[in-house]
């Protein structure tokens, strides 16, 4: 019996060395690729949190934006409301690429810097307000967008009645969500200027491959305006 076993062992050809080497490499590659794909969402969240937590500096490197490299950290505009405030006041017009506000919403634990102007690099650093919308505090439609992969990942969780706050150097502006919206990229209905005060937040619909042509968001109406005196 033992003789038979040893004969079998001698007859069984050993696994070739290339196979022994390549197979673990292939398994490693599979694991790495799977981890990378599965890790996209956590990575985006982590970088978002890190940027906010450590006040990552604005690094804008597109050709046209070469000279917008503001070295200042993210500005926190939260102020003590005990100081004098009024319903009317003067706004400060921002320069392109300037962070002139923060947008926050406790419901979805949102806290994001808002930059004036819209640019790919700016979108990497926070939310962007298109220069064709009205400056925060003026009467009209304030339109702000951000990446669905990062800052506005939970925008679809906002519901009617949720409070959204915009803080600037010149005041604090509170809004209440009144409507959830879905629209096509080519539909300008919600981003056009208006005669009434409102805040429109939007982002892409989440999509695994490619960038979606559909947008989701919310329309908010003002509930409180407080200009700092």
């Amino acid at each position, binding site marked *: 019996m033992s003789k038979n076993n040893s*004969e*079998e062992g001698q*007859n*069984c*050809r050993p*696994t070739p060395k290339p*196979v022994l080497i*390549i*197979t673990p490499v*292939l*398994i490693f*590659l*599979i694991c*790495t*690729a*799977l981890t*990378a*794909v599965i890790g*996209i969402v956590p990575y985006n969240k982590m970088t978002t949190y890190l940027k906010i937590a450590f006040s990552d500096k604005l690094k804008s490197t*597109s*050709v*046209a*934006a070469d*000279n*917008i490299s503001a070295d200042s950290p993210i500005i926190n505009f939260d102020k003590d409301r005990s100081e004098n405030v009024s319903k009317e006041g003067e706004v400060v*017009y921002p*320069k*392109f*690429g300037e962070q002139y506000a923060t947008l926050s919403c406790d419901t979805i634990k949102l806290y994001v810097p808002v930059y004036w*102007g819209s*640019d790919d690099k700016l*979108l990497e650093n926070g939310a962007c307000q*298109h*220069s*064709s*919308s*009205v*400056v925060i505090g003026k009467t009209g439609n304030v339109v702000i*967008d*951000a*990446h*669905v*992969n*990062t800052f*506005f990942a939970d925008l679809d969780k906002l519901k009617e009645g949720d409070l959204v706050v915009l803080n600037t150097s010149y005041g604090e502006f509170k809004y209440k969500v009144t409507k959830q919206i879905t629209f096509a*990229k*080519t*539909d*300008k209905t919600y*981003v*056009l*200027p208006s005669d009434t005060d409102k805040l429109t937040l*939007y*982002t*892409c619909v989440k*999509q*695994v491959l*490619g*960038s979606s042509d559909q*947008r989701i968001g919310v329309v908010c109406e003002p509930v409180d305006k407080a200009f700092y005196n």
Partner: protein
Amino acid sequence: MKKIRNLLLTFIAVSSLSLNFINTTSVKAATKEDVIAAAKSAGIPETDIQNGINFLESSSYTPEQYDKMIDKINELAVKKDEGIKDALDNASGAVIPSQTQPAVTTGETGAAQQTQPGAAGNQSSVISGIADKYSSMTPEEKKDYIAGMTAAEKNEIIKSIDKDKQLEIINSFIDVGSEFGMNIAVDGITDNTLTYSVRDNDGQIVDISSVGVIVGDTGIDYTVFILIAATVIVMSSAGIAAFAVMQRKAFGTQSDNRRDN
């Protein structure tokens, strides 16, 4: 190429409105409000007007500068109307009384194509739709008709005018910007977008925008990344499977040999 051309044309149309939102009439504006009102009455797109309001509110100009600006814009508007007139004349087979181009003989076979190759081949549906009506108008009626066109109609036609005329308008537009301390540069052209930047005389960026884009792209595209990862997974899996099959075959052969022995 056609897409890029169309983008350039849209660029002319949109940017000439956005920077300008200044009026195309001969109103002498003494204040910002006058300029804004004039822009609205001129039928300029709301978003461009808002963009202009933001710009004007953050800058200071004298009434004389406003007037000068309006004059320059009027020159630009005239160039645009000339381009539109040429395009409509071409489409309707009329003789083109242009100073820069030789007269074109009329004919059913499209003699206009010989002098304006870019135009006739790219007639938009808007041009085709009004060509017949336009051809039967008197010169005065034609002038009034163009003056009465909406901004959207004009923009649509500008997209299909002769390339030289487009460049002329672009240069005129850039001249207007330079006159008032705004320098426009095209930063990038792809099949789908044309990105341009506006800088002041100090080199500071006033705005960066893409032609006709108001709703931004707010999703990061991971398609390439995911495709690469998927390819790695599939190919690695295939490799492992191939090794497994080879091993099984080798083992089966050995077993058969032993059984035979």
